[in-house]
């Protein structure tokens, strides 16, 4: 199964993509497509690199610009759902990296740019986000076949499923923004102290950070805590609850 990691558990992102069966298992892949799809060669071919967004699209579409940790360059996300999807990718330690708008496919005379390229549990996925998972039926087969040729799977995810995880995504957006800003600070020692505290007390409540008087130490402790969360060494119940001073972090 695509979403199952080495220990047999299904990760959170795995649950999201398992609901959308990879099209590689679909029978119409056996049919010969009317048009063949090819990846347009760009400077980084055949590796994924973000395709540029035209100024016209920047003005017409609902575009969001954000830097993430797993994609450290300035990413252009062409809808709110894509932004939330990127934040959800940050929440799963099994996702190694992702690239928004990674390739340009040519299908006949048409050009198609998928939404995201994800490396998840050593699987390479091309993700397309659509309302109600509605994707052009005449493009499914050529794009899927072309992706498989390069060892990738093409998956269409519905915007509605991503929007259901909005609270979690917005929490992770905050966490990523904090960590990017704190990138230049070394927090290894503080991370060890927090882990020791959790092992000793069973949990770490965020309110402890508020009680730290020194601004510099408060900032670094907050960053250390969120770094541990991002690495997957601790967990917190922020799936449906906003991050607050009552949030408990456990191992």
């Amino acid at each position, binding site marked *: 199964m695509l979403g199952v990691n080495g220990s047999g558990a299904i990760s959170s992102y795995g649950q999201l993509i398992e609901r959308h069966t990879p099209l590689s298992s679909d029978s119409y892949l056996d049919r010969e497509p009317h048009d063949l799809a090819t990846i347009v060669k760009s400077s980084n071919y055949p590796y994924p690199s973000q395709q540029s967004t035209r100024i016209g699209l*920047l003005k*017409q579409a609902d575009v*969001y*610009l954000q*830097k993430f940790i797993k994609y450290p360059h*300035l990413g252009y996300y062409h809808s*709110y759902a894509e932004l939330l999807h990127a934040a959800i990718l940050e929440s799963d330690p099994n996702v190694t990296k992702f690239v928004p708008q990674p390739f340009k496919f040519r299908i006949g005379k048409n050009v198609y740019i998928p939404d995201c390229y994800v490396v998840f549990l050593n699987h390479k996925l091309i993700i397309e986000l659509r309302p109600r998972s509605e994707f052009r039926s005449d493009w499914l087969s050529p794009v899927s076949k072309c992706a498989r040729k390069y060892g990738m799977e093409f998956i269409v995810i519905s915007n509605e499923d991503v929007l259901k995880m909005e609270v979690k995504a917005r929490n992770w957006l905050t966490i990523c923004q904090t960590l990017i800003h704190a990138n230049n600070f070394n927090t290894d020692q503080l991370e060890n102290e927090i882990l020791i505290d959790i092992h000793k007390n069973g949990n770490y409540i965020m309110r402890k950070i508020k009680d730290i008087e020194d601004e510099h130490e408060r900032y670094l402790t907050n960053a250390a805590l969120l770094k541990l969360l991002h690495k997957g060494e601790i967990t917190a119940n922020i799936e449906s609850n906003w991050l607050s001073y009552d949030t408990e972090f456990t191992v």
Partner: protein
Amino acid sequence: MTVSWRDQVAVNPDLLDIDNWPPLDISALDKEKRYGYIKNRSIVAQVLSGRSIKDVSRINNIPPGNISRLLNRAFCPNENGDPILTRALIPGERIRKSIRVTPLPSAIAPSGERCSFNYILDQNPNIRRSLDELVSDFVARKRTAQNLTPKTFHSAFLHLLREADWPSDCYPFTSSSLAYESLRKYFHEKCAECALPKLPKRTVSTLKSDLRAGEELQIDEQLTDSESTIYIDLNDDFVPLRVSRIQLILATDVATQCYLGYHLCISGNVNQFDILSLFSSLYRKWQPMDLITPGLKYSPGSCFPSHFGEPFTCLGHNIIRMDNAMSHLAHTVRHHVCHNLGSTLSLGIPAQPKTRPIIEEAFNILNKRGVHRLPSTTGSSVASPIREPKKNTKKPPVVSLRSLEECISIILTERNITPIASLGGNSPLSTFTNQVENTPVRLFHPYSYSAEDPFIHCKEVPVKFLPEEKRNPFVNFEHVRYSGNGLCEKSLIGKKVTVRYDTRDIRTLHAFSLDGDDLGTISAPRTWQRFKHGVATRRLIMKLNKNHIQNRPDPLTGYFIYLLENKNKRRPALEIARIYREFNIKNGIDLSIHENQRNAEDVSEHDIGDNAWNFRKFRRF
């Protein structure tokens, strides 16, 4: 394959209890149907309770076949595949859409006309499509659409049939009305369907209503037609000038509706530096203006949150929403928001002010409470009845620009302390400060960000040296040569250096080699050193020079002279107000300009020539 009612009940045992079936208000039924419905319901309930059909038939004196037929009808699937249940128990109720099975009536084989029209549309999807297009174009009022009536729609239908070579001895040509009534009903149904509001295709903003302070920041600008006055002292004569429009840029926190800051742009158009000025003001401690207009004063406690200092001056927002104006798309703005602030920049969809409702409401309040109450400040349209009458336009307005600024400042700060019902009777300011103190908002490190950051930029420029000129090595920056002692190194010639500059004052730059060595300060020529000026002003002056509109040796003063020569026009008057503030001209400074001097480097502040303009004591406006 139809699943029998027994199998359906076996899969879903809840259906055995008729009380779990969809309810029906029997008082809405006709009296005749009500009796039949109650009887059918009783029969079905008896069978589902476990009695055999034979026993139920004997008790109710109904053939067993009728009972089986009734149960099959009740468990018949609808369009979604679910059993119809209750509605099927109503006698005479049509549970499925009628479909014609027999051929259409013709001259040879006449028959009934029921469902014939739908039969034609089902068999000829092209005709249905053409008819639907006609209706949808008509409802959408497209340029090429016809004005349809049932009669013209009917004519179009007959025309389509004739084009499709429909036999003339077949329905509808065998009917006296030619299917007019069916067409009329279809036309009205389609019009109603097309007129229904469409569901939004995409989610453009969060659907969550429980946002917290710092989650989203909305920024927008509004053009205010504010006819106000500035005074300049021209040869000891105070001349009032009309300034026309100003742009107000406002930043609002979405969750608490608290105004965080504003920037007044005294120019025709907002540029990227104005947006950066707004960001700078958000992270600088706000100080109230020194009010000079009589009668104006701040309400006690009214302020912007940054007045309280930290942590409000180092608060990071998650998403910053702006519209897609060109000034927002500038790379400097994108870089500042995404890299310096670490926030998400949302540029929004065009013509969608409702995605930024908080900011639009803010401008509405400002216009109603303050700006549009002043005379000559409507700007709504040329024909607006409350626009300034022509007789008043000959004299300068009563309201000065300074008074207008004070008015705006007071209204915005007062709104922050006004209780709002949607915030539970609390004021936006108290809600904002409360949430920042009690929720883990994102804060910058005290030393990693300052209010000056939006203005500090870096650029790589090559070092040039022209042996024939016998001058020091220099770099070109914004069309002007900069030189300094730090560039006089042989190893730097032809190489690039990084210059760090403040966009508000580019008289001097700070140069660094690409290895990071500090090369010190480099300066523009003395002709550009007279007044403090920024990148935007430099570019305006160079544009005028390029178009040969003005080309004086002293470019800054020459630009001022050019504006004074056009001072009676609205835009140059506004520009005078802007550069007066940018040049940072203080009261009492004697500024003499010698127009005939070729070499502006020799100009002395005490020189007064025959053609000199004598600017003294610019009155504060």
